[in-house]
């Protein structure tokens, strides 16, 4: 049972067998004429040789026809174990797995102006046309998240064409590792033997797709690992699209470097400009816009090949609300235009309301929240302060409006009724921040009832020392990477680590709690817990000078601001996603019963439902899908109750690097276990099959033998080969 790598060529080449026959017939028409006298002898000789001549001619014709047939077969490269494909029989069922790279990097135009993805689709269709009628087809796309769009389906050219047509090029990053794993799963599911499983990866073979996320232990990336695993259960052939590396410059990052973003001060941001090039990138300019309005232009000096440079800048935004800062790289045209811009949604706040519930002496300097309130809202800042702190007594909490409150501070509150704890729990779950400072008045029994659901630690007992003792515990940083502590560095000079603590609650942190600060005796000083969309922090000492002298240290202000900033949970945290990622916009209860309207960068509008998750309202913008998904980079506007939030969707930096992995790289990594073909001639992919060469070699040997026999026969018959 044979099939052919080039069935079309096989059919055409089969015509080669007609050549000797044609030559034979033509030779009967091509002769010289000779007037002849001795016909007597000629007729006698002819009569005697007629049968022998006929046999010789038929034998030579058969040998030469066989030689031509063998040449045709060798050119067509037969595959042992398969039936003929060009109408001479049915091809054995083969599991075909087409893996199409439709990630953003495939949008790069080729030399002919068409995108690499267009070429990939053409190559895939051309390849699919060579498959046998009984083959099973699986089609997998690699754009994140990798998807199986056809699974073990019977061969249907139209279905494949439609399936590919329904898969436009994306702006998503490549999820090649997952796609290869899906392909392996498809191959393993097949009941066919491994030699009848064939996977074809149609890709531009970007280096970053293969080398990112390398495991330290094996040195292999997940893509390499999964490709290797796939080759263990199936043949894998790569059809390379547009094999040349293309220079590309991109903005791969835009971040706000300020912890607190407000109208009161310039907002510090940074753009990361990358040169994914083989040559230096000439100087360019960075255009900065706020809500689409150009606010400044910065020069960007020439970048070395492969360099990523951070360009810091500031913008001032006068009005609070959901704003978009965008940067665009102005310079020579490159391969991918869409990664020359990047967008950042920032929620600019003014007068963020902080409700400080004081355990005693509300408003007095001796109050537990006094230093905290002053740290967040200096007395001379007035309405311009970023935080507006309102201090109330513990019995006034039930009357406070938490809907307009960002942070609630419990400063040495004795205890709260259960309903207030529940109210605070709901507040936190909805995204609010709760800062609890437990001091001498805290009732551990009351607190610990709430601790199971809300507080990050249970109060055990007060650890008390002589305030004059020389060895009072001080603080030490448990997690320097946490935003609350990131500003202090290893050796803060503002007194954070030298403040003395004479008393503190010894606590038992919850399992899901995260300790940020400890005392030098190992006890917990500051511990955090996420609850719902919000967070809760527990300070195990007083916020005034009663139990420690930290409020007298400069670092106290920074620490409190950072705590408040961390707890205030900027809304823009949900509003910056990569292409294909879902964006979830938390909504307040007031949005219940309404609809959300999404306006995409290209102006289309979609209505999205508002969902309720455990009582919390939210609207989810899907990552992939036909309607209103984040499948395109740019600014999306989400409107609920006349309030508009701006979502920013950017391409992954992974898709910006168009530098190629070469054939040598591939061979060095996988040896000969992965086949290779130029997508311009996808049929050549099949030539990679070992079976082809296995069949071709004996064919060539037989051909040689036939030619040898023909030569000897011709010589023996006295024929001179024409």
């Amino acid at each position, binding site marked *: 049972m044979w099939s052919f790598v080039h069935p079309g060529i096989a059919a055409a080449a089969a015509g080669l067998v007609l050549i000797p026959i044609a030559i034979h017939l033509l030779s009967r028409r091509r002769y*010289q004429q000779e007037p002849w006298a001795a016909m007597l*002898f000629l007729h006698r*000789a002819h009569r005697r040789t007629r049968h022998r*001549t006929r046999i010789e001619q038929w034998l030579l014709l058969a040998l030469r026809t066989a030689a031509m047939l063998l040449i045709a077969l060798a050119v067509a490269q037969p595959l042992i174990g398969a039936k003929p494909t060009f109408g001479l029989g049915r091809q054995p069922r083969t599991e075909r797995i087409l893996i199409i790279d439709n990630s953003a990097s495939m949008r790069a135009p080729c030399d002919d102006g068409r995108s690499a993805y267009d070429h990939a689709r053409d190559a895939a269709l051309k390849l699919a046309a060579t498959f046998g009628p009984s083959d099973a087809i699986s089609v997998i796309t690699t754009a994140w998240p990798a998807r199986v769009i056809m699974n073990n389906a019977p061969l249907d050219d139209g279905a494949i064409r439609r399936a590919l047509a329904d898969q436009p090029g994306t702006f998503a990053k490549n999820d090649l590792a997952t796609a290869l794993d899906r392909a392996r799963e498809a191959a393993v599911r097949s009941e066919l033997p491994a030699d009848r499983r064939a996977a074809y990866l149609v890709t531009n073979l970007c280096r970053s797709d293969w080398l990112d996320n390398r495991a330290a232990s094996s040195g292999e990336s997940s893509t390499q690992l999964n490709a290797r695993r796939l080759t263990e259960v199936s043949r894998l052939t790569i059809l390379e699209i547009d094999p040349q590396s293309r220079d590309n410059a991109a903005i791969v990052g835009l971040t706000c470097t300020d912890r607190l973003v407000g109208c009161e001060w310039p907002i510090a941001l940074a753009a990361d400009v990358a040169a994914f090039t083989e040559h230096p990138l000439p100087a360019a300019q960075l255009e900065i816009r706020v809500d689409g309005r150009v606010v400044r232009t910065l020069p960007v000096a020439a970048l070395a090949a492969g360099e990523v440079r951070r360009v810091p800048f500031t913008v001032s935004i006068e009005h609070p609300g959901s704003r978009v800062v965008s940067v665009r790289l102005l310079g020579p045209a490159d391969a991918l235009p869409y990664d020359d811009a990047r967008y950042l949604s920032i929620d600019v706040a003014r007068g963020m309301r902080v409700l400080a519930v004081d355990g005693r002496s509300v408003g007095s300097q001796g109050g537990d929240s006094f230093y905290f309130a002053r740290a967040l809202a200096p007395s001379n800042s007035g309405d311009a302060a970023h935080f507006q702190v309102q201090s109330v007594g513990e019995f006034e909490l039930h009357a406070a409006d938490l809907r307009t409150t960002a942070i609630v501070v419990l400063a040495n509150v004795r205890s709260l009724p259960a309903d207030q704890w529940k109210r605070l729990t709901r507040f936190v779950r909805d995204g609010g921040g709760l800062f609890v400072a437990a001091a001498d008045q805290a009732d551990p029994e009351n607190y610990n009832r709430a601790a199971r659901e809300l507080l990050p630690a249970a109060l055990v007992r007060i650890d008390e020392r002589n305030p004059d003792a020389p060895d009072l515990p001080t603080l030490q940083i448990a997690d320097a990477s946490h935003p609350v502590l990131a500003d202090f560095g290893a050796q803060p000079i503002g007194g954070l680590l030298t403040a003395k603590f004479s008393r503190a609650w010894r606590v038992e942190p919850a399992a899901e709690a995260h300790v940020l600060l400890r005392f030098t005796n190992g006890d917990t000083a500051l511990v955090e817990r996420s609850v719902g969309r919000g967070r809760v922090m527990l300070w195990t000492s007083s916020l005034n000078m009663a139990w420690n002298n930290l409020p007298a240290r400069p670092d106290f202000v920074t620490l409190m601001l950072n705590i408040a900033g961390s707890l205030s949970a900027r809304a823009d945290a949900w509003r910056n996603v990569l292409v294909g990622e879902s964006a979830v916009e938390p909504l307040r209860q007031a949005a219940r019963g309404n609809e959300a309207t999404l306006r995409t960068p290209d102006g289309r509008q979609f209505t999205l439902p508002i969902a309720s998750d455990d009582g919390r309202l939210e609207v989810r913008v899907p990552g992939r899908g036909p309607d209103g998904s984040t499948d395109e980079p740019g600014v999306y506007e989400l409107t609920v109750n006349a309030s508009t939030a701006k979502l920013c969707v950017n391409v992954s930096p992974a898709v910006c690097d168009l530098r190629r992995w070469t054939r040598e790289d591939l061979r060095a990594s996988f040896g000969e276990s992965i086949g290779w073909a130029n997508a311009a001639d996808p049929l050549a992919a099949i030539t990679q099959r070992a079976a082809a060469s296995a069949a071709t070699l004996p064919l060539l040997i037989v051909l040689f033998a036939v030619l040898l026999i023909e030569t000897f026969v011709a010589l023996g018959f006295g024929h001179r080969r024409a």
Partner: protein
Amino acid sequence: MVHSNHDYRRFLDPRVLARIGGLEMRARMIVEGFITGLHRSPFRGFSVEFSEHRKYSQGDDLRHLDWRVLGRTDKHYVKQYEQETNLQLMLVVDSSKSMTYRSSDQLLTKRDYAASIAAAIAYLALHQADAVGLIAFDAHIGRVVRATNNPAQWKTIIHELETAPPAPATNIRRALDEVAEKLTRRHVVIVISDLFEEPSEILAGLRHLRHRKHEPIVFHVMDPAELDFPFTQPTRFEGLEDGDRLLTQPRIIRERYLEEVQKFLELIRRGCLQNRTDYQLFSTADPLDKSLSGFLASRSAHMR
């Protein structure tokens, strides 16, 4: 005119003679070249033109030894005679179309060659006072030029040889039968033909001649290509006489062809031998004095 040993041979080369226009001139050249050669050959003594003594050579008839010279000088000389002949020589020349064949390497057709032989023999014979006649034949015999030793006969023979039209068919047996019946006196009958007919028929004709007391001599003329069959490419052979055609691969049938030819020649040769008929095979590439030598050898035998 003095010629070197090689010069006279030049006149007997068919390739040279072919360039000489006119059968008459060609025949003269043959005979003169032949005679010049005889001065240096052991055949010299057979010529009536050179009635003289020459040294005895092995094979010479002892009857011709000059005993007187031997007695006087103790040397062996052969005595030559001024021959007085009563030889009646009839040249029977094939004028069928098959005789018009000439292979690409040759300059003379078989007919040209045969005519040259006939003319040369006639010239020589007339100079020896032999009576010479001519009959051209194809399927039948044509005009009969009766044998006479009139010197003007040669011109007649030349004219007849030059003007006899080629006929599309041959029947040697019938022609020889007609010759045998036509000639009333005893003749030396020189048949010059390619003999493309069944050997049995040819031999029957020759036997008929012999039966009528004639002395047949067969000069068998063939083209070298007919003897060697040098063709290699596919060829359609077109029969000269009957328009028959045969497309074949010469390289395949050559061996069999040559076997057939050899078999034919052997049958003719053996048949002639049994019939006491002199037989000489000529290739049109052969020097033409070969025919004269054959003729003289036969004449000598006849005189004995």
